[in-house]
């Protein structure tokens, strides 16, 4: 190869050619090396990137799990609606981008052409709502209220409606069993945001653009259980989004069902009674403000004492949670969030905070006993109490002479507790407190679980507030600047005087603060649920439970995923004797105290009822807040209504009727046959061999005992049109919706295995659907 030809070719040129050859082959080697590096060394990364490039997903949403009451009756489930959707991919293949098809669809459905066109256009920066902000590969819903006729026409004239389909689809439904709305506890769903999709990308169950997630209440708290896993079909597409082929598909996995502790029958009674009590209060004249009571909001809770389970939780005003289904309309949203709309989205049982008024006195009494005061001692109940030039009055300035703490609770005598609080305050050094004071009142309040959230399994619970020395100091530090600024001004009004005092003294615990605190007034705040859990602890003998609404999570196939056991959050800071004394005193409230006028004739011998009234003064020109906390050995019922007057006056009748419903009290006798829940529910609802939760709908119950599992399906059940639209855990759109979109609704309703649906011919199905719709 290296021989130099006999052509007189000089070695110089040959050498240079060899140099060129070396250069050339180094270049080629470089290319080969780089090619090896890209394709073999890093090949997998690029392959993944290439896959991401050209794969688009179409999502078949998972059926969301149902939320059931303690007996298995669905409160939130899914119903099958005929949803008409447009497939943009198919529409875009038409010469006019599907415009003519959309016009025909709008005509058929009786909708505005423009509205339909707007609904299926894709959202971008320039496109105003309404528009579709989900994946363009996802069928876009046009309506979920199509009639059977309309759906049939779309199917039968498929050639006129390319890209349009009408299929029975599972849609969330809040069925309000027995009339129990339970709106704020159940919560609601709304579509995910882009940020949420991005945030969930690396989790086990990433969100999809089409997903709805729980925004409040149980829907939010248990979202990860309820949501299930969407089925995804991946399509290969080209740069322009045209589908080249289907690459893989996963079937959807239905979400698990949540069994709650709520009894929808009791819930219904509680909601009804709360509303009625509020309506009644509005007819009553308030002598203090000179106008009728506003009674603008309220809440009521039924707790199970031995477990902390929430049997009922109502908050008024409320709303129909179904307004959220299929996207909330602008009008509805404005109404729900309007400033003068009473904020119905708020769950006042856990988010409403206010001074508890006299219901707080069981805590003050416990603190007094712990501080060394004798429960049976003798305390002066005068008509007023003077401290530092201020006069603190009893309710309607009544005086009872020398009485025990028990009697002070019964008649709700403020001055007894003023005296104790004042003495304690002096003992701790007054305005110049001793180091490390005992602070029995504050300490006991904390130990009753106040000032911290109860830990109920609902989102955004409020903590309440115990205005102890530390809080006063922090509050002063936060407001000092503001106060002192006003103090330095020339103003001479009331605000300026208060500010001047607060500017220099605001961090100090004054006698008046202590006095107010002792009767649950002033800066102390509690939520209704906190108060209920305090009284439930008195009812069970002294154990505080973390209230809970979730009872168990049951997978779609019927297996119990998780059962939430009662969780104690500590013991009351009271001896057994003190608890017994408080129980006696609170029973006295019902029989011979501040609530006796509302509980005359109550079968106290059969069902010992305890209670405490409260009438809390609110700030400004607001009328007093009414509180009524009552309990038996098994349950606690707390009702509070803002701007409604006294505890017994506003809520007495309503609370009594709740108790009557629970225990089946008729007049002065007890008829267990009509009792809704004579004893707390101990068992999970029955789950049949198909994994279907069998609702125990028989009412009234023959016995409140353990044997409810054999009650099973009653004859009426199969005919109940409210049932069976898919709360069964086995509900699976793939099973129910057969390839030609058959919704085998009747079969599912009777609890047959979800997959057992036999598609009939279209006419037969239509008949069924119509039955269903009726």
């Amino acid at each position, binding site marked *: 190869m290296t021989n130099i030809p006999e052509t007189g070719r000089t070695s110089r*040129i040959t050498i*240079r*050619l060899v140099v060129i050859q070396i250069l050339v082959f180094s270049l*080629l080697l470089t290319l080969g090396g*780089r*090619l090896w590096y890209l394709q073999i060394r890093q090949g997998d990364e*690029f*392959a993944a990137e*290439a896959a991401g490039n*050209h794969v688009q997903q179409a999502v078949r949403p998972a059926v969301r799990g149902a939320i059931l009451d303690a007996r298995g009756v669905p409160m939130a489930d899914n119903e099958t609606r005929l949803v008409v959707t447009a497939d943009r991919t198919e529409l875009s293949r038409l010469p006019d981008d599907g415009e003519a098809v959309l016009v025909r669809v709008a005509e058929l459905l009786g909708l505005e052409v423009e509205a339909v066109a707007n609904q299926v256009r894709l959202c971008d920066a320039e496109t105003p709502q309404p528009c579709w902000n989900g994946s363009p590969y996802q069928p876009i819903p046009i309506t979920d209220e199509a009639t059977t006729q309309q759906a049939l026409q779309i199917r039968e004239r498929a050639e006129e409606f390319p890209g349009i389909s009408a299929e029975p689809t599972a849609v969330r439904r809040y069925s309000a069993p027995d009339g129990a709305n339970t709106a704020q506890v159940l919560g609601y769903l709304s579509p995910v945001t882009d940020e949420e999709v991005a945030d969930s990308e690396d989790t086990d169950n990433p969100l999809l653009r089409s997903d709805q997630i729980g925004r409040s209440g149980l829907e939010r708290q248990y979202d990860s259980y309820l949501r299930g896993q969407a089925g995804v079909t991946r399509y290969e597409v080209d740069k322009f989004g045209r589908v080249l082929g289907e690459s893989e598909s996963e079937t959807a996995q239905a979400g698990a069902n949540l069994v709650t502790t709520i009894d929808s029958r009791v819930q219904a009674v509680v909601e009804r009674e709360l509303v009625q009590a509020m309506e009644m209060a509005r007819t009553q004249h308030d002598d203090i403000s000179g106008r009728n009571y506003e009674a603008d909001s309220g809440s009521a809770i039924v707790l199970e004492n031995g477990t902390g389970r929430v049997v009922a939780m109502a908050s008024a005003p409320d709303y129909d949670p179904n307004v959220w289904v299929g996207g909330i309309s602008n009008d509805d949203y404005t109404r729900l969030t309007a400033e003068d709309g009473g904020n119905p989205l708020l769950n006042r049982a856990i988010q409403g905070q206010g001074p508890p008024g006299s219901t707080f006195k069981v805590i003050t009494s416990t603190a007094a006993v712990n501080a060394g005061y004798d429960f049976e001692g003798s305390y002066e109940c005068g008509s007023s109490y003077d401290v530092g030039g201020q006069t603190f009055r009893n309710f309607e300035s009544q005086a009872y002479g020398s009485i025990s703490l028990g009697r002070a609770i019964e008649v709700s005598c403020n001055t007894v507790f003023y005296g104790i609080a004042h003495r304690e305050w002096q003992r701790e050094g007054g305005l110049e407190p001793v180091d490390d004071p005992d602070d029995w009142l504050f300490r006991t309040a904390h130990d009753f679980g106040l000032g911290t959230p109860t830990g109920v399994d609902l989102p955004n619970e409020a903590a309440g507030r115990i205005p102890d020395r530390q809080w006063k100091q922090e509050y002063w530090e936060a407001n000092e600047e503001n106060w002192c600024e006003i103090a330095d001004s020339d103003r001479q009004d009331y605000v300026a005087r208060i500010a001047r005092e607060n500017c220099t003294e605001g961090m100090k615990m004054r006698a008046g603060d202590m006095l107010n605190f002792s009767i649950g007034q002033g800066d102390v705040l509690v939520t209704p649920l906190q108060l209920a859990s305090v009284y439930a602890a008195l009812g069970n003998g002294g154990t505080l439970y973390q209230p809970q609404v979730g009872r168990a999570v049951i997978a779609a196939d019927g297996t119990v995923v998780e059962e939430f056991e009662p969780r104690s959050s500590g013991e009351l800071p009271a001896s057994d004797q003190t608890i017994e004394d408080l129980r006696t005193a609170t029973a006295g409230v019902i029989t011979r105290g501040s609530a006796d006028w509302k509980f005359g004739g109550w079968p106290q011998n059969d069902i010992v009822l305890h209670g405490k009234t409260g009438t809390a003064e609110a700030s400004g020109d607001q009328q007093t807040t009414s509180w009524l906390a009552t309990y038996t050995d098994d349950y606690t019922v707390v009702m509070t209504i803002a701007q409604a007057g006294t505890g017994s006056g506003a809520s007495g009748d309503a609370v009594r009727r709740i108790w009557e419903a629970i225990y089946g009290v008729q007049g002065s006798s007890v008829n267990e046959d009509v009792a809704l829940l004579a004893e707390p529910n101990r068992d999970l609802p029955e789950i049949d061999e198909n994994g279907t939760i069998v609702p125990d709908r028989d009412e009234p119950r023959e016995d409140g005992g353990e044997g409810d599992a054999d009650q099973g399906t009653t004859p009426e059940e199969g005919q109940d049109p409210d049932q069976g639209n898919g709360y069964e855990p086995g509900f699976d759109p793939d099973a129910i919706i057969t390839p030609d979109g058959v919704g085998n609704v009747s079969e599912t309703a009777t609890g047959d295995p979800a997959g057992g649906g036999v598609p009939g011919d279209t006419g037969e199905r239509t008949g069924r659907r119509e039955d269903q719709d009726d």
Partner: protein
Amino acid sequence: MSVHTLTVRQPARRGSAWRRLAHRDSVARRLDWLLLFAGLALSVLGIALIWSATRNRTGITGGDPNYFLIRQSINLAVGLTLAVGIIWLGHQRLRAAVFVFYALSLGVVLLVFTPLGTEINGQRAWLSIGGYTIQPGEFVKVAAILVMATVLADAVDAGDREFPGRRAVLQALGFVAVPLAVVLMDDMGTAMVISITVLGMLLASGASLKWTIGLVLAATVGAVLVWVLGVLDEYQINRFAAFANPALDPSGVGYNTNQARIAIGGGGMFGSGLGEGTQTTGQFVPEQHTDFIFTVAGEELGFVGAGGIILLIGVVLWRALRIARESTDLYSTVIAAGVVAWFAFQCFENIGMALGIMPVAGVPLPFLSYGGTSMFAVWIAIGLLQSIRMKRPLSA
């Protein structure tokens, strides 16, 4: 391999066609078959890859998936005919007409600036004549090679000098400078290829090394000046920016290179199979049938196929270098060396940009990229090499 050195020409005797072909002095025996087959293999492979890249692109094929397949096949046929024509003419005979050829190509280049010129991708490097677009820069490469070889080798082949002197070198450079300057204004890729080709020829001619070194230095200084003075168009700066940082704006400037690398990287060892590449069928890589044809090979034929293309190019270059070394006169050597420099650099630039180791420049991949002008120029070059290989005497 000494058989290649036998050069005695004997008149072909009458006889059967087979005997004529088999005669030791026949065209068939003297052709470099390996070179021919490597070139043909690359061209046919190119047609298959072009078909795969374009069959879905209804926007440019007008609905006929075979549109580009047919066009490129015609281009190859014309290219082969041109090669045969060059062989029939013989490279030595071209020596006489080289200046005519040079003048013609110069004229064609200048036509770009008349209304016949067309701008594509920010480059005014195309001529549009009767629905056909041609790239005159491709012909300039051939013309530059021929005119430089003629001027450099004149005195040497006449036996007056051992190596080209200063005069010859300056003359040669002067001849290429004119079209180079014109091309440089708008088609940097081609200008770079011509510059490297010139360097290769100077080196191979045996001219003093100071010329080569001086030119490299001048080019470097020139490049720096161009950069500093901001003579470059925005698209050219963007290409360099995307090369320096491929992560830059993946949907904009860096899109080309990024998608190209995804396509090649996704191919793996054996590729997805012809017509099966998702990047290719999905049309994610722009200019995939022309400048980025290598990405189709990378994705659909994998390391085996794409490496095979590099290997085949290696075969072509190896044969061409061999022809350069074994030629009897400097004219032939310089032509062959010029073709080697041209092919080598253009392949390196084209494949290098697809692999992300060279900045993007609009040069086609010899043999494989779609485009008539490129195909013709490449096969004219192959014709020249074969002609040199057959050592047709001047008087033939």
